[in-house]
Each structure stands twice: as C-alpha cells, then as structure tokens.
C-alpha cells in the first residue's frame, strides 16, 4: 500500500469518469442513476485500488464493477421506480424521438438484467463478445446466447415480427 498509488487512482478516475458516466447512462437511461452507479463504482474502486492497480486490464475490472452495480440496483428495484416514476428530463428535446426512446427504454427494462447489460454493452457501447464476456465474467458462448435471448425478448415486448435471418448471429 503506497501513497503514489493514490495519485494513480485520481488520475485514472478523473480520466475515466466521462466514459463511466456514458456507460452507466446507456445501461440505465437515467443520468442521475448513472452518476450513482459511477459513484458506487469509484468508491469500491478506491477501496480495492492497491490490488486492482496490479491487474492487467483495469478498465475491464472497472467496467465489471459498474455493471455489477447496475445489476445490484436492478435487484433492489430502485431503478424501475425511478424510471417509470420520473421520465428522464433530457429526453424531451424532440417529442417523437423522446417517445420512441421512452418506449424502447421501457421495453429494455423488462428484459432480464444480465441480458440488458449484454445488449447495451454490445450494441450501444460497441464492446465485442470477448470484451463483454470479460466484463460479465462469463464465456463468450453465454454472451452470444444472452444476446439472442435478450433480442428475442425485446421483439416480443415491442410486438415486432421476427426479422428474416439471412446470416448467423454473434460477432
């Protein structure tokens, strides 16, 4: 345990807060909760920093903590109350777009939490299957299956016809 590591922590956190906020926001769709998720993540990050700083991929470790914070919040149900009790303020710029976003976000919220995380990480955060597997601590096959299940669930919720499959899924 050594004081220099504190500066590394600060430098790391200051550099990563924008990206962490973005991921948190894409996961939950609420900037206030995104800030809460990031707050929880960087708190745990500090508590574990002397060890985390020794791992090969600190970003992956931090993203894992963020996603786990999101999943924990889902289990506690706070997010659901927040979402439907108070629509995101920033979504009102264009009425139609805002409605689409709210509907889509509501549909995504009904998907199983881990599937939500997989879909967001893959399609909104542009993470590869391998990267998502590392973040979630599971196999690439599980990520692919969670992707398929999540998309199917979204289709059902949104009432969309299943598109014709011309090629296999999975990156």
């Amino acid at each position, binding site marked *: 345990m050594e004081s220099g590591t504190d500066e590394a922590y*600060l430098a790391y956190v200051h550099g990563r807060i924008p990206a962490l906020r973005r991921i948190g926001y*894409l996961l939950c769709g609420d900037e206030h909760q995104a800030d809460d998720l990031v707050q929880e993540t960087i708190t745990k990050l500090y508590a574990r920093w002397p060890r985390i700083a020794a791992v090969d991929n600190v970003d992956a470790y931090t993203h894992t903590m963020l996603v786990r914070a999101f999943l924990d919040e889902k289990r506690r149900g706070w997010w659901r109350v927040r979402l439907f009790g108070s629509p995101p303020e920033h979504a009102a710029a264009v009425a139609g777009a805002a409605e689409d*976003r709210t509907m889509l976000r509501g549909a995504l919220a009904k998907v199983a939490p881990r599937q939500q995380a997989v879909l967001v990480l893959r399609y909104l955060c542009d993470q590869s299957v391998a990267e998502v597997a590392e973040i979630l601590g599971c196999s690439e096959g599980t990520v692919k299956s969670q992707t398929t299940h999540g998309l199917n669930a979204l289709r059902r919720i949104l009432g969309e016809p299943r598109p014709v499959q011309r090629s296999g899924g999975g990156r």
Partner: protein
Amino acid sequence: MNDDEYGTLLLRPLAGEPAGPPLIDVARAIREGRRMRRRRWAFGGAFLAVFTATLVTGSLLIAPATPHQPVLPPDPPLPKSCTLAALPTGKYHSADVAGGDSTGRWHFGQSNPQANTGTQHTLVWHDGVLVGDAAQPGSEVNLRAVNSSGVIVGEVNDKTTGIRPYVYRNGKFSALKGGLGEALAINDDGTIVGRLGSDTHPVLVRWRSAGAEPERLRLPEGSPIAMYNLAIAPDGTVAGVVILPLAPGATFAETATYLWLPDGTTRRITAPPPARDTLAALNPLTFRNGWLYAEQVLSDRSDNTPVIAGIQLVRYDPASGTWQKIGGDRFTDGPQLPSSGRGFLHAGTIRPRVYVGTAVLDLPLTMPLADPEVDNAMLQSISDDAHTVTGVLSRGGSGDPSQPDRPVIWRCG
C-alpha cells in the same frame, strides 16, 4: 438482417450522452472507500481539487545536470536464482506481509488481513522467523515502514482520538508526539517523517527519534499545502510533494516535488516528460542504494480534464542530478517497483517481477506453495542487496476466507 445488425438498429435511439453536469463526488468516494478498506491508509483531502502538472521542458528523460559523465550510485548485482518459502503465521489461518527493511531481515504484516471486523494482530518477522504478535491498539492500524532496527511506523485510527502517528518497538505500540497525523517513513538512523494536522491543512514533520518532538519541514515559498508523498534517505534527505498556488484561470493546481536536504535547504526536482504536450506529476517512492525512485504520472495536456496517458518509472541521483528512465509506460504493465515504506508501487502485473536497479528480477512461483496458474503475487519488500523479497500470494483477491492470503519470502543469491 442478422442479430447484430438488428440489435444495433433497434437500440440506436438509446445512444447518447448524459446531458447534465456530473454529480460525482470523488472526495466522498475516497472517504467511503477508505472505510471499506481493511487497512486504512492516509490520503489528503486537499489533493482532490488538484491534478499535478509540470509543464514540458524537454523531450528525452535522461538528463544529466552536469556536462561531465557523473559517477552514479551502483546497482546491486542481479541474483541468479531465488527460492520461495512461506513466512510462518503462527496460530493464524491467514496473514499478510506488508513491508520490510533495507537489510531484508525485518518484516511486518498482520493477521487475518481479509477480516472486515474483529481484532487483527501485528506480526513481525526477523530473519524469516515470527518474533512479534501484538494486538493492535485501534480500530484501524496502518503500518507503513520498518527500519534495520526493527522499528515500525504508521498510524492508528482510534475512534476516540482520531488518526495518530504511531511507532511499534519491542512488542509495544506508542503514539508519536504531535497529535493527529501519520508517520509515513523511517530511515535506519531512526528519523521518521510524516504529516500532522488536518487533511486539508497538513504540515510535513520530522521526528529525530521515536520519542522526539516533531520538527516542521519548511515548505518552499508560496507552497501552502504539503501532500502525502514522502520518502526519507539514509542521510536524512526527505523527498515530498507540495501543491502550488492555483494560477489565475487554471483549472488544476500544479504540484512540485522537493528535496529537503540535511543542510536545511530545499531543492525542487523536475523530471523531463518523455514527450511534448504532456503533463507530468512526479511522486517520490523510495530511496534505494543512493537513488530516489519515483513514478511520473503522464497525462494529456490538450484537455482540461486530465486523462492519464501512462505512468513512467524513473529514478534520480540527488548527488549528480541525473535522471534515468527505469521502464513501464503504463501503470498496469511491467515489473513492480519498491516504494517508500511498506509495500510496492503495484506497477506490475500479477507476475512476481521486480526492478533491481534498472534490471528485472523474475521470481519463481513454485509448487506446492504456489500455483502459477491461479495465484496472484503482490510483492511487498525487497532488500537493498536484492537477496530478500517478500510478497503475498492470493487467489482472486476477493476476500474469500476459503482462499486466505499467504505471506511468502524469496531468498535469492
């Protein structure tokens, strides 16, 4: 349309950035993170508003201060081989080793390091034999350094008195004079350096001995705040960091690294960053074999938000003013580097590799004590002659009581 195309199209409306300003409180994260740590270690609240910034003055790191080739402090020879052994933990199922002295004979740690509650004991080893087992005097004890006489310094957090600098000698803890604060390093002469006062207005102090009154280290003109980074050399030279006054219109305050020399003078030291347009903060880590080892935190200066670009390990010869790059351009890569007092700068991967001067010593993880496939090894001390290295083996680092931390020692020759 395959699943990936469908998913991308479907979720595209949700893409976007949070619109409002962040409501993230790094200071609170650190305060709460501190409480979550099983061993508290100090951190200055004043630093939260600060990112160190030293402007670019050069493009290459090695920069001798004199035109003549200086005679540099020699490095110890790299050992040819090392053997791994367990450090005894007595009656404790789990323990760690947290630091060692320059000779490699004294080491300290604590029992049950993964416990979040209950009493932990300070453990002391001499020549690899467990010779000390003492109940800790406060709710949180953070020991940082030991010298060649077996005197250990650190701080104790007692709920009634707050965090105070402490010393451990001959099996007993006692508070250093001066009130609230932290003891950060000790040299083999018994001189201790640390901080006293609040987190926001700390002062750097030196205790000439464990029983002495604290002496304030004079800050350079115009530097109102001292930071936590401190190292002390065998001759009493102290290296530390101060926060400079915020420049008009600046977003971040700069910091500066100083030496407090035995003759009472101070000297600012600045390592040239490796590239133009780079901010570099210099954190002293430890004095070893005549060199001051430090980490240079590099960041992109093109943005008001400092984005870390890497950490470079450097060392400085105070006698000649020579800087040398040791290695590592990212703090997650490369071998580990000894730091001031307890522990290492965990610059390395989980492989046990440590710098000996500018060379790298690879340490073996051998069965049955260690399984190189699953064990993480965090190094905690290396002797000046590089013959003795200690560390902690862990599996996962998750605090799982079924996978206790194990203190180990490598003996090299």
